[in-house]
């Protein structure tokens, strides 16, 4: 029974993403409930919350319309296609965070009375992360007052009675409320010692009562606090007073990994809500501040948002759900004469994970996909064709599959080739599903055909108890289109429940011609450093590649994608993901990072110093998350000096990096974009002397 592969069948709901459909398929006991079913929510339980019919999509659609729009139900132009392209129909939400009065037929609300009024020359840095410490002194001014204008804790303990915000979950705090909490939990006034244990609990940032509560801020290192410090932290005792006054912050604490999914199954949903909420709150504060602009200038504060998350697998052409919606948000803002949101995302740390493969497919090709033992997280693999011609503009359901696939689990007889059509799946045993789907690009009359393989974790000690096999799967793809094509295979990001645990292990591809190390024993990066164009890259396998490992979320021309390098000698971080061999859709998707910023101080000083979880502490964190925050900082500080109406963040940073990086042996664009840009952080001492 473990090897039995069932016939293809239509998905129960064509518009649910495969990850979400599979998430629910292996949790049969957890039925979808509705916000509005009238039943109480147990704070110790976790729910899959949706709404009847299409109401959640309707609410999400209404949510992305800009604040103050005259008719929020009027669909935005050029974005109809988004709403048939996989918005989730339900999301997991812990019971303690649920808004029991949420009305999905109504938009979210903002109470202007609770918001602060600020000066017109402010720049807002938004950080969407996990474990952002709102009380940290580096997010305050010299008087101990917070610089945080608003913060949404998406997993926060919902206050009772529910505030009238019509947010589906979580809790928000605004500037004055944060200051009040600072007063209540400080010894000797706002500049005195902050009782962080008490403050963090009162602010809904730390929760030891519920299994799904946040706890990072009680540890030593908290990703969100470090990233926010890198992006917008200032020493109140030393920083320029004008910068302290003008550089404002908005923070969204994402839910914990159990809620957003260990492979980011629901990350897009929560991240998009976060982006839109930051934009809406910034607009509302603009209104509250009664500000105006000269003729020809857009309304609103310059806003730079850093989102240090991503996924290794995806379309990587800028046409996925996340990028379509983000593009629509900015399109709406332009239409309503509001400033665009500048979004900064890391390229990812997947360069050496053996998770990206490329088939130049004339006939049939095969690769081994290894799911590791002792792995307690589900595993996913995405397979996509290159863009193929769709001159008749056929709909998704009408497109015949150009590739067939044979998926053989470990220990099973060789599976035959088969193919599905759009929004179909077939079950493999009771532990895996293979989905087939089509992505349409109307603008270019092209389509892409894909398969997504989802397999349950090899080991489970708690729900869901369905387990999948560990070992070598065989993945075969056959071209039945009649013309050679490229097929892209990517192993999806995979994390553990706790940040430093090792229970969520990522599968990898295996090929004999893939080399992890150089002949001298050092780690093999994509290119040698210093780079010699005559040498080309250091890839040894035409199939299993470092090229193309770039974060699927960052692959959009509308987003700043940031790679990382080592400050002392300029060497790109070996783990910093590499761009694609060529853009899959030049109109919407990028091939390479925008630029590279530091993510390590030196060979023996790994990472960059930034705020630790506890106020006053410092920790070193490395990774392109840190590089991304550096780029966000550079952007924000520039916007303090010059924020023209048509500011192009990508063009600006590309130009800065290109001008700054004239060193010989400069790495090529797939690793560093246009160049390496050192960014000065506000630290009182340098680790490098």
């Amino acid at each position, binding site marked *: 029974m473990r090897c039995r592969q069932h016939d293809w069948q239509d998905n129960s709901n064509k518009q649910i993403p495969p990850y979400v459909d599979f998430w629910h398929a292996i949790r049969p006991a957890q039925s979808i409930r509705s916000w509005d079913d009238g039943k109480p929510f147990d704070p*110790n339980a976790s729910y899959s919350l949706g709404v009847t019919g299409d109401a959640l999509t309707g609410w999400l659609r209404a949510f992305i319309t800009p604040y103050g729009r005259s008719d929020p139900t009027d669909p935005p132009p050029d974005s109809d296609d988004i709403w048939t392209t996989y918005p989730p129909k339900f999301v997991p939400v812990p019971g303690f965070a649920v808004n029991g009065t949420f009305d999905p037929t109504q938009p979210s609300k903002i109470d202007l009375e609770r918001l602060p009024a600020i000066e017109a020359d402010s720049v807002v840095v938004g950080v969407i992360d996990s474990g952002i410490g709102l009380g940290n002194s580096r997010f305050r001014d010299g008087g101990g007052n917070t610089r945080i204008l608003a913060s949404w804790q998406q997993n926060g303990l919902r206050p009772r009675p529910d505030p009238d915000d019509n947010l589906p979950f979580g809790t928000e705090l605004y500037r004055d409320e944060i200051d009040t909490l600072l007063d209540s*939990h400080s*010894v*000797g006034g706002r500049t005195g*010692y902050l*009782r962080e*244990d*008490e403050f963090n*609990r009162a602010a809904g940032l730390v929760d*030891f*009562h*519920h*299994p799904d*509560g946040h*706890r990072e801020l*009680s*540890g*030593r*290192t908290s990703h969100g606090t470090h990233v926010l410090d890198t992006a917008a932290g200032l020493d109140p005792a030393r920083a320029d007073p004008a910068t302290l006054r003008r550089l404002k912050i908005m923070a969204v604490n994402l839910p914990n990994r159990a809620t957003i999914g260990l492979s980011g199954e629901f990350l897009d949903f929560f991240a998009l809500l976060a982006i839109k909420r930051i934009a809406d709150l910034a607009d509302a504060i603009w209104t509250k501040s009664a500000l105006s602009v000269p003729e020809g200038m857009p309304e609103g504060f310059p806003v730079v948002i850093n989102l240090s998350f991503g996924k290794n697998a995806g379309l990587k052409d800028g046409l996925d759900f996340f990028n379509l919606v983000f593009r629509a948000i900015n399109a709406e803002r332009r239409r309503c004469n509001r400033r665009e949101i500048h979004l900064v995302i890391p390229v990812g740390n997947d360069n050496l994970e053996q998770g990206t493969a490329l088939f130049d497919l004339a006939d049939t090709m095969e690769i081994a996909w290894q799911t590791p033992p002792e792995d307690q997280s589900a595993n996913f693999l995405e397979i996509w064709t290159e863009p193929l011609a769709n001159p008749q503009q056929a709909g998704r359901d009408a497109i015949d599959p150009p590739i067939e696939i044979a998926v053989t689990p470990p220990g099973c007889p060789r599976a035959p080739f088969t193919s599905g059509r759009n929004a179909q799946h077939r079950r493999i045993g009771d532990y895996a599903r293979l989905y087939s789907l089509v992505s349409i690009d109307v603008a270019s009359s092209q389509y892409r055909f894909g398969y997504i393989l989802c397999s349950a974790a090899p080991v489970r000690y708690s729900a869901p108890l369905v387990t999948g096999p560990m070992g070598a799967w065989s993945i075969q793809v056959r071209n039945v289109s009649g013309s050679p094509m490229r097929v892209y295979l990517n192993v999806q990001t995979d994390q553990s429940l*706790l940040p*430093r*645990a090792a229970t969520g292990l990522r599968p990898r591809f295996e090929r004999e011609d893939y080399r992890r190390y150089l002949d001298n024993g050092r780690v093999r990066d994509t290119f040698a450093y210093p780079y010699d164009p005559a040498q080309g890259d250091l890839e040894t396998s035409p199939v299993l590649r470092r090229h193309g490992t770039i974060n699927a979320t960052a692959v959009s021309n509308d987003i700043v994608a940031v790679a990382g390098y080592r400050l002392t000698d300029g060497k790109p971080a070996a783990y910093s993901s590499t761009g694609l061999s060529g853009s899959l859709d030049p109109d919407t998707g990028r091939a390479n990072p925008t630029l590279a910023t530091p993510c390590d101080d030196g060979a023996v000083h790994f990472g960059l110093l930034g705020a630790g979880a506890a106020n006053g502490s410092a920790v070193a964190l490395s990774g392109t998350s840190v590089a991304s925050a550096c780029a966000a900082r550079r952007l924000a500080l520039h916007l303090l000096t010059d924020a023209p109406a048509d500011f192009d963040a990508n063009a600006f940073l590309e130009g800065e990096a290109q001008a700054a990086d004239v060193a010989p042996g400069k790495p090529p664009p797939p690793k560093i974009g246009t160049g390496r840009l050192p960014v000065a952080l506000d630290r009182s001492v340098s680790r490098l002397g």
Partner: protein
Amino acid sequence: MTITQEAIAGQPVFDPNTLPYPPEPTDASYLDGTWRTGMLTSALAGLFKVASDGAGKASVTVGRHTVFAATRPTPEFIKHQLQLVRNYADLRIDRSAEILVQMSDLLSFFGAIAFLDSRKREATLEFLSAVQTVTTLVEAQVKYWCWVGRPIELAPEIQPIIQTPCHSSFPSGHATEAFAIAAVLHRLMADSDARHGIENAAMPFRLAHRIAVNRTVAGVHYPVDSMGGALLGCAIAEAIVAAASEEKVREVTFGDTVMAETDDFLLSAVAPHLPKRPLRAVANEPIVESLWQAAQAEWQ
């Protein structure tokens, strides 16, 4: 030695006028540190008496005065605390090193927040060492009368990262000792009582709180154990200071109203249960008073 004595002593004639006189009763400087600390410990231990009604209650008295009274938490209460213990386990990766060292060494951590040098603060170190020893003697009896099972006895999934001790979970020994040390040290550093020190989050109490919480992280205590230990530790410390000086003692009570069953252990929650007004005087103990003054002199 015998051969040498035979060779050099001769046949002395003793002169009674050269007999030594006893030292001043308040001068213990001629003793070595170990003996002096032992003597102080003995004197302090003699201050406290622990009694029980046999039904999960314990009281600690000094002379005729009750300085601490506790009623153990109910099994129903403990059940609600178990989820907190499980959730605190998420911090184990960060705190394992601290937890392991703090199994047997607390004073080193206090030495990092106060200059506890063996020459400069010799009397202080001896006094703190004696306080810690006496605290364990008192807490052992309170634990015996207020027995509460350990988290591992309720749920094997707690899986503590250190050996669970054989004695009662309530009150926490680490919390008791840490808060007792903190209260005495705070007296020396700031000449201020425990309630005031906790209200102002003085460093010794922040450390004591962390030591206590680390035991919950390790999986061997509930938050309520730490609260009970914090109150007991402060009560012991204040009684010792009262015996050493002209201070009066407070009567600290741990009962139903101190914590709700889902409450966490926060430092700010300790102070309200330390009564503001001291109530009664206890008899001074000369040895304790003398060595306390020696310690105080090191902070002036």
